[in-house]
């Protein structure tokens, strides 16, 4: 009885006239698409359209097409949904996938537009005049106190700003565990963070020793699985982040399939090699908000009061939760929207749970202001910030900085084929197979990431210049500089943004 109903999604086409028969495609494909018998022979079903072979074919002889297999049209039953049912009937399995929510929900960023100055106010030229992007993350007092010194005014008592971390531009690299991504990805992120004056985040897989030289640009994460967490680890980072959840899979823990738990990872995570590293859904010492406070302060006590942040998925009650987190002593709140990426997550959770980051930032920022505590913590926004436009918009909505994960991986060669969970990433990103991992040279990776951050920073300066401000703090939280276009009135109101024309 034939049980394989899922036909290949893609079709590999090789132009025989151009093909050199060099076999490069066979070697490059991580999914095992190609065999070779005088010429490459593709197994279409294994192809994920990651374009590794297309990119590396010296004759540009390969293209990938969508399979022309026709289905009877039925918008209520898209082909992808039919395939899901077939897979589950075949395997009884929870559908597991990678990267971020790909469903066609409304993208609010694409319905927000930015202001510019005309006549009544001058725009500023970002090329020739200073444009300041420097950002500090952390809590701050509501006022500054000064005393009169011998030569002028002196700040009293450091103003409690030692727990602030400086970013040269309001971008950080999102947490991606060593395990979900390769060590070379971590090395690339660390170097780029150092060069750009920003931060990377270890994610929940612990911190490999190769990152120690860059620890001043690293946030160490403590997740429910407590992988790789010991006092030395906590003290290495410039800040500690408690991961309560992530946008791609709110309510459930991290998931590293056993295929991806090689010896190095096992050592770093302090688990047996080859075992599935599935983090518990909650931290088993945080069952209520006061427990969070306890965890936060235990970390502070261990680290001499380094800044401690808390990462949560954006869910319905995110404003109240964030308020609780801030009152529990967090120095920053990391909000991960429902478009956030992941190395592996159940598809049903990834695609149907959580709320957009635009809304989350807006309501958290407003709620903290209403309570008069917005300055107690910074807000980092993620999930997915795709461009400098999204970056500017999310800052205008109230975020102090944005974290980029998917965009960072794209910079390193990812093509969003959503195959991360298989551990066979042809680009050497979401894998630990040595022959694949070595494809990503950390120096090259660092340069790519630095280029991306540089380009977005320069674009952000252009945007600020057009807005007539020369410092990012004058855009931060200024909803006045945004308007909605084609959004319903209620969502506009929730965002605190007027519709275009008003």
């Amino acid at each position, binding site marked *: 009885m034939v049980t394989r109903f899922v036909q290949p999604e893609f079709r590999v086409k090789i132009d025989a006239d151009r093909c050199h028969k060099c076999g490069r495609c066979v070697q490059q494909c991580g999914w095992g698409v190609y065999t070779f018998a005088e010429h490459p022979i593709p197994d279409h079903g294994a192809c994920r359209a990651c374009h590794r072979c297309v990119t590396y074919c010296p004759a540009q002889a390969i293209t990938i097409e969508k399979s022309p297999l026709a289905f009877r049209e039925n918008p209520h039953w898209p082909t992808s949904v039919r395939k899901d049912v077939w897979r589950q009937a075949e395997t009884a399995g929870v559908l597991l996938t990678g990267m971020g929510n790909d469903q066609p929900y409304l993208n609010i960023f694409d319905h927000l537009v930015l202001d510019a100055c005309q006549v009544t106010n001058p725009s500023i*030229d970002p*090329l*020739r*005049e*200073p444009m300041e992007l420097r950002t500090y993350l952390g809590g701050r007092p509501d006022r500054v106190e000064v005393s009169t010194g011998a030569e002028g005014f002196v700040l009293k008592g450091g103003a409690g700003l030692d727990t602030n971390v400086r970013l040269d531009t309001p971008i950080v690299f999102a947490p991606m565990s060593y395990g979900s991504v390769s060590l070379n990805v971590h090395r690339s992120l660390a170097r780029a963070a150092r060069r750009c004056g920003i931060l990377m985040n270890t994610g929940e897989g612990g911190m490999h020793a190769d990152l120690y030289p860059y620890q001043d640009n690293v946030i160490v994460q403590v997740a429910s699985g407590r992988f790789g967490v010991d006092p030395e680890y906590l003290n290495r980072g410039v800040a500690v982040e408690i991961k309560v959840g992530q946008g791609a899979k709110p309510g459930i823990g991290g998931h590293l399939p056993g295929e991806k738990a090689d010896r190095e990872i096992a050592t770093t995570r302090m688990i047996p090699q080859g075992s599935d590293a599935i983090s518990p859904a909650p931290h088993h010492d945080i069952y209520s908000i006061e427990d969070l406070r306890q965890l936060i302060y235990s970390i502070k006590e261990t680290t001499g009061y380094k800044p401690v942040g808390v990462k949560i998925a954006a869910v319905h009650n995110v404003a109240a939760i964030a308020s609780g987190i801030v009152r529990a002593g967090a120095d920053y709140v990391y909000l991960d929207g429902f478009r956030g990426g992941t190395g592996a997550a159940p598809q049903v959770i990834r695609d149907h749970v959580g709320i957009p980051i635009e809304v989350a930032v807006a309501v958290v920022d407003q709620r903290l202001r209403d309570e008069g505590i917005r300055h107690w913590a910074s807000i980092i926004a993620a999930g997915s910030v795709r461009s400098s436009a999204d970056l500017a918009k999310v800052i205008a909505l109230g975020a102090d900085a944005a974290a980029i994960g998917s965009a960072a991986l794209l910079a390193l060669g990812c093509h969003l084929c959503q195959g991360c969970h298989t551990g066979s990433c042809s680009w050497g990103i979401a894998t630990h197979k040595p022959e694949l991992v070595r494809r990503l040279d950390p120096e090259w990776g660092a340069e790519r990431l630095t280029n991306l951050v540089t*380009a977005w920073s*320069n674009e952000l300066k252009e945007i600020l210049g057009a807005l007539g401000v020369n410092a990012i703090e004058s855009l931060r939280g200024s909803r006045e500089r945004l308007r909605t276009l084609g959004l319903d009135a209620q969502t506009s109101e929730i965002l605190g943004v007027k519709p275009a024309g008003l």
Partner: protein
Amino acid sequence: MTTALVGGLDTGSIGAAALLDQVGDVTTIDCRGLHYRALNEAIRSAVVEGARTVHLLNVNGQRYIGTGLRGGDLRLEVYGTPGQAVAMFMDGPTVEIHGNAQDGVGNTMNAGEVVVRGSAGDVLGYGMRRGRIFVEGDVGYRAGIHMKAHDGCRPLIVCGGKARDYFGEYMAGGLLVLLGMNSGLDGPVVGSHVGTGMHGGEIFVRGELEAWQCGDEVRPMLATEPETEALGVVLGDYCDVFGLDLAEVLSLPFTRIGPAGCRPYAGLYTYV
């Protein structure tokens, strides 16, 4: 003839308001209480009547004096503090100001000369294309911004005192000189962001500059002997106008600021 007083400034006709004095091709106008429209109209009428020199007495705050005026043989002598935008779009005449000038002197000036026996405000010589502006004292922010040279014409600005930030911003051509000798200001000769965005022309500052004072697109270097000599030729007239000793002016070394390239932002963009 009575004229309506609006806001204290007379917008009435010239005949009733201004005191005209005409001797040969020299006309004198008392500008006290005169609105700028009447004043500038009076200048134009005088020129039409044959005046080649116009003395403007008791000027205070009237705008656009010399604006759009054409003719290399015309001369305006301004006594008092003229208002914004003196000699804007001016094309040929000479304007001498006996007092301080305000903002926007020589804006997009096409040709001619402006002499300020005092200080000038912000945005001096914006987009200037030819001609000369000589200021005896200090200038404010953004002096010489976006000066241009073309067809062998080279605008010149010389300031005898100190300048504030953004000196020579966006410069595309011409010569901008700062002496720092006749100043009422404390602090360094020039502020920060000197020559930011510069892609043509030359700036000379008497004395030395620190690296942080200059924009990213320029290179400050000590002026060479031939450069200083050439500068001396240019400054000769300036010294004559204000009674300075050229030798003393050249007694301190000058810093020359020039663009590092003519396409400073070429590497910034990637084409889609």
